[in-house]
């Protein structure tokens, strides 16, 4: 696996602090939803910084997408969200990862649990399910601070209507939208119980988000009777 030159061909704002970058990578090989790429920047004096980003969608020919959450004081993410221009080069390496992946030929029901920007690899799975015409039952529980922090908001609204067998439930931790029933709260046992699959259906569970969130959710799942081997986690460390 080598570093490959890539160019920014488009960007989309997801939230005030997160952007999806569409990169053209000549000769890109296909990837599985859940995999990530390493992205490398080089300064004029040869200094380099690389970070890992989850792929947000199936490849479209040579085009791949990542969604970058701007980390204040970060070395790489603020450059990518604020400064990096269309047409400019970066290098990517990948796809990487063979564990936190969903293969479209799988038939088990799937539960996805996202904390904040942890939704990115899970959205890749939702999009891959759609692209494959899979009818595997999918449920996403998506925990965000406020409605303004939802990535892919419009697309998720459309997908729930158009993709049979996909359900999405939101948990707001700080501020809920108008007309929301219930109070903002951190994701808890009731949410996982009400919006997940019962363990007797033997679902495959993918949990992605900040460390504390993933610890809490995976403990709840195991407590509800999901076998630990059926719960795949990806903890997002702080990557600047």
């Amino acid at each position: 696996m080598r570093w490959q030159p890539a160019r920014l061909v488009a960007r989309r704002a997801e939230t005030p602090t997160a952007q999806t970058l569409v990169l053209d990578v000549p000769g890109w090989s296909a990837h599985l939803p859940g995999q990530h790429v390493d992205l490398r920047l080089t300064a004029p004096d040869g200094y380099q910084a690389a970070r890992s980003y989850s792929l947000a969608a199936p490849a479209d020919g040579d085009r791949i997408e990542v969604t970058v959450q701007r980390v204040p004081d970060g070395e790489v993410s603020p450059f990518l969200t604020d400064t990096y221009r269309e047409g400019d080069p970066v290098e990517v390496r990948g796809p990487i990862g063979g564990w936190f992946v969903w293969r479209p030929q799988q038939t088990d029901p799937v539960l996805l649990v996202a904390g904040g920007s942890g939704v990115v690899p899970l959205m890749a799975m939702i999009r891959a399910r759609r692209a494959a015409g899979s009818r595997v039952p999918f449920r996403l529980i998506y925990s965000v601070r406020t409605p303004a922090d939802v990535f892919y908001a419009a697309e998720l609204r459309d997908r729930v209507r158009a993709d049979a067998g996909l359900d999405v439930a939101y948990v707001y931790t700080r501020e809920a939208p108008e007309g929301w029933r219930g109070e903002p709260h951190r994701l808890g046992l009731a949410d996982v119980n009400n919006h997940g699959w019962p363990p007797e259906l033997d679902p495959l569970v993918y949990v992605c988000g900040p460390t504390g969130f993933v610890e809490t959710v995976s403990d709840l799942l195991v407590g509800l009777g999901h076998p630990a081997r059926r719960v795949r986690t990806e903890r997002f460390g702080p990557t600047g």
Partner: protein
Amino acid sequence: MGIVTPGFSGRPRVEAPELPPGQYLTPDFPVLSAGPTPRVERDAWEFVITTETGAEHRWSWAQMMALPQETPTVDIHCVTRWSKLGTSWQGVSLDTLLDEVETAADYALAHSYGGYSTNLPLDDLRDGRAWLVHTYDGEELPAEHGGPARLLVPHLYFWKSAKWVRGIRLSLDDTPGFWETAGYHDYGDPWREQRYQGD
């Protein structure tokens, strides 16, 4: 030298000779695991070294704690690019544990409560380069960082330092472990940037 991205300057350069290529320093201690955190009680805990002939050497928690203790202070390097310098641990040197083990094996497969595994050449566990640690920074090692006890092999990327370690199987053949079968390098030397298969 890669392709220059216009406008990127990066952070002010810090001369850090102790930092392997492609790594950056972090003040915190991120947690990265592939599944739920196993919870293992110390009185039910055991550590087993199994040789290539099937001979087993077992230690209970009390037996392990009664062995000579060491306090390594080491730099650790995660394949996800963060490094942490001068981390302090307490535990038992693998030299002490292997001392009573008769083996002709070249390879070790560490396996953990919860099902994790990782492979290393047996030599990499010898000569004061690997420990079974139970204390981090003067405190009991928390479960999310691999407590009650984890392997500490700081000269390799940190996924080789198996959390919740339960035993080591010695063998004449190399068997890839969890991440090694999922695209990561068989050996994982941070100084040679052996992150992924084929590096």
